[in-house]
């Protein structure tokens, strides 16, 4: 039940283990090119945006999306987080998510 609904938090380095899964990724928007954006989450990630997504270059964004075979992310939901986001804390959460996955997600 909860298995299918969880959206594990990842960074760019985890993309290849999560293809065709829905994930959560936080990063800084570095480039916006129409329907596509580049997000820095411990490395660059290409995001294919939907119509509702309003991204701002330089701001942090949280993306809920599906990982494509080419390791780009199809955005389902994007939440702007502003500029005051501690990326060290974000990577600590991602690290904890995968190290102690028993409380975060099911395989």
């Amino acid at each position, binding site marked *: *039940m*909860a298995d299918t*609904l*969880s*959206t*594990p*938090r990842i960074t760019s380095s985890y993309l290849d283990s999560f293809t065709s899964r829905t994930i*959560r990724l936080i990063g800084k928007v570095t480039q916006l090119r129409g329907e596509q954006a580049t997000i820095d989450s411990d490395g660059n990630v290409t995001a294919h945006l939907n119509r509702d997504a309003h991204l701002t270059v330089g701001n*942090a964004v*949280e993306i809920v999306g599906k990982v494509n075979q080419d390791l780009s992310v199809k955005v389902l*939901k994007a*939440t702007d*987080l*502003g500029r*005051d*986001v*501690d990326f060290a*804390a*974000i990577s*600590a*959460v991602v690290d*904890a*998510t995968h190290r*102690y996955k*028993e*409380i*975060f*997600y*099911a395989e």
Partner: protein
Amino acid sequence: MANYGYGGGYSTTSYGEQGGANGGGFMGGSQQGSQEGGGSKTYGKDTVRPVTIKQILEAHQPHPDSDFKIDGSEVTQLSFVGQIHSIASQTTNHTFQIDDGTGLVDVKQWIDSDQDPEHVRPLPKEGEYIHVWGRLKAFNNKRHVGAHVIRPITDFNEVSMVLLEATAVHLYFVRGPPETPGMKSEGGGQGMFVDSNGGGAIQNVGGKPMPATLSATGRKVFGLLQSHPQNNEGLHVSMIAAQLGLQANDVFKAGDELLGEGMIYTTVDDETWAVLEY
């Protein structure tokens, strides 16, 4: 949340001073309940525990109407964060479906009809992150959280904080208090290890750190053996059980772990152990 005191027989052990300094008396009582799940009166369960929604959904209820347990410890009051998935408003309550990336749970907030309309706070909107404090409830086999407080999150770092808090507390219950001196244990359970043998004793077994997989009981038994005046005989299982206020079979289990790790060895018979020092 720190209901890991170190057993009832605390003050009679050789490290009694430390126990006293940490106010072990109350802790001891709550530890009995959380660890053995006995019928004894517990207070630890009423502390607010930070959790992930996956933990809420997987909380174990031994039988209907009893308290929920997470990591073997009773919980009632919860603190968690999440993004609002949907809102359903009725005349008596608002029900928010909250998603924190680990699962989805319903949060119910009752509407206080006596409240001054001027002071009614605006309802959080879909997609917003909120921090919820509330009580876990089950109704018709469906779990929900009855909210005491719902507060919108304005600084996203609060989300990271609660998720990391939940991890730390989860590990605290599963593995016992952290053993590095730099990381302050919330429960003060650390205190028992900092005795004349040197605070470093527990971290270093012949220069090796304690295996992270060691159970809380294993750590306690090892701590006791280490703080005990060393002689060739070591301590008998029944002595360890009496001093730590544990069941003999729990001590045997812990002993098996420690023997397996090569941290202790058997002396005069299979039930008498001493610390293996090299």
